[in-house]
């Protein structure tokens, strides 16, 4: 079992199942936090992730689940490159907007929708890492998904993200309105440079 990646809440291993390569994502104990909180977060997130991936599997490009346990998920191994490690094209960012719109249409908020959680593969763009996702119809949660992406990409790319998002989600006006509201909250006022 080879460790191929590590995030703030899980370790990613490459394993072999019936001769095929697969990914094991395991949420390991974090010693810095209280045991009860640690267990609760790891369980809830594993559950949320498995549930969201299953719900999205027929409508969006997400890794297929092979098996899920209390703290770990075994899933299909993708061949590709994270968007954060590549020069993002406007076609890719438009695709990302469309995917987020679809998710929001299905009442799912991703919780960490950034180029670090989008993978460019041969057959297109995949969304990964649903550990912070939740089933919700909250416009605040949806707006935060957009805000996170807006902050992680060059400003020039954002308009095509917003455009394709709006085209794929009927509630986009309410979400974008809420986004404006969040950005007005004191500390998010336009970041004036030096």
């Amino acid at each position: 079992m080879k460790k191929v990646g590590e995030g703030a809440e899980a370790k990613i291993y490459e394993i072999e199942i019936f001769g095929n390569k697969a990914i094991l994502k395991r949420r390991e104990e974090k010693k810095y936090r209280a045991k009860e909180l640690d267990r609760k977060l790891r369980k809830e997130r594993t559950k949320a992730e498995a549930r969201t991936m299953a719900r999205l599997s027929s409508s969006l490009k997400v890794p297929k689940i092979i098996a899920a346990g209390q703290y770990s998920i075994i899933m299909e191994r993708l061949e590709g490159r994270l968007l954060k490690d590549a020069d993002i094209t406007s076609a890719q960012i438009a695709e990302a907007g469309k995917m987020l719109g679809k998710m929001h249409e299905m009442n799912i908020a991703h919780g960490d929708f950034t180029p670090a959680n989008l993978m460019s593969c041969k057959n297109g763009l995949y969304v990964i890492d649903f550990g912070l996702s939740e089933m919700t119809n909250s416009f605040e949660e949806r707006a935060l998904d957009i805000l996170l992406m807006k902050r992680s990409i060059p400003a020039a790319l954002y308009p095509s993200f917003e455009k394709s998002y709006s085209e794929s989600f009927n509630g986009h006006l309410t979400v974008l309105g809420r986004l404006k509201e969040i950005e007005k909250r004191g500390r998010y006022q336009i970041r004036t440079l030096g």
Partner: protein
Amino acid sequence: MLVIGLESSAHTFGVGIVDGGKVIANEKEMYKIGKTGMIPAKVAEFHSENAAHVIKRAMQKAGVEPSEIEGIGYTMGPGLGPCLQVAQLSAKMLAKKLNVKIAPVNHCVAHAEITRHYGKLKDPIMLYVSGGNSQVLAIESKPFHHYSVIGETFDIGVGNMLDSFARNLELEPAWGSSIEKNAKGGRYIPLPYTVKGMDFSFTGLLTRSTELIGKERTADLCFSIQETAFAALCEATERALLLRNKEEIGVCGGVAQNESLRNMLQAIAKEHGYRFGFAPNEFNADNGGMIAYVAEKMLLGGMGRPVSECEIRQRYRTDGARLAIR
């Protein structure tokens, strides 16, 4: 270069003196926060009354004559307008009298920079936690040399949240380390935990904890609110470390004085084999030493300004301040 730094962004009037990167005096007077919190005009009045003698005391401590001072720094922001004005005016007056240049300093950057200095950190992920702010910072060189904010609170600062809860519990005193002291021996109760990538929020946690006052033991509540808030900060910090491939962690600002938080960050550092550093507590509380420290770098880097160009900016963001490269 002998530089004096003035700080008055919130409840503390601080004066620091630096010589060649070394803080040789760091004096302060702090406004006592009662049940009403901070009323800006009243705090400003307190600062005006204390400015002259704290400046004098710092010079005596450092064994420095006014005529020897070669530059002045003051906190330009962020902070409360009436409070900021006191250090700004004092700096202007001194600069005119001594005929030296002024460096307007960003308060948050000063906390981060003094921590980088004392914590012996080169290129860390810096967790800046105070009453008004909670940010995850990293140094970036584009489009100019600055601390970029890669994560921050969506609503209130973690220190403000803890102090508000202390006031709701009617603790005395209701600020600073009062929650930490009352958390001893507490058990964990589940409370709302909000992390979005590298951002976090605290109002939900405050509301729920306040609802539970009287229904749960005070020690349990204090322990759990702290544990939950700090775990969120730690998760965001760890995510930032891994995403940015950094190998050093720093913590600064008022809440950096909290030992539980430091222990948690230390545990993350240990797990990954990273370096963890922080400054002595006198620099985590508001102080003039850090302002003088950054002002000296700025003045040496040609970032000094004439008296006429020294403004204040109440919402001066961390990522809006250019860093002196030294």
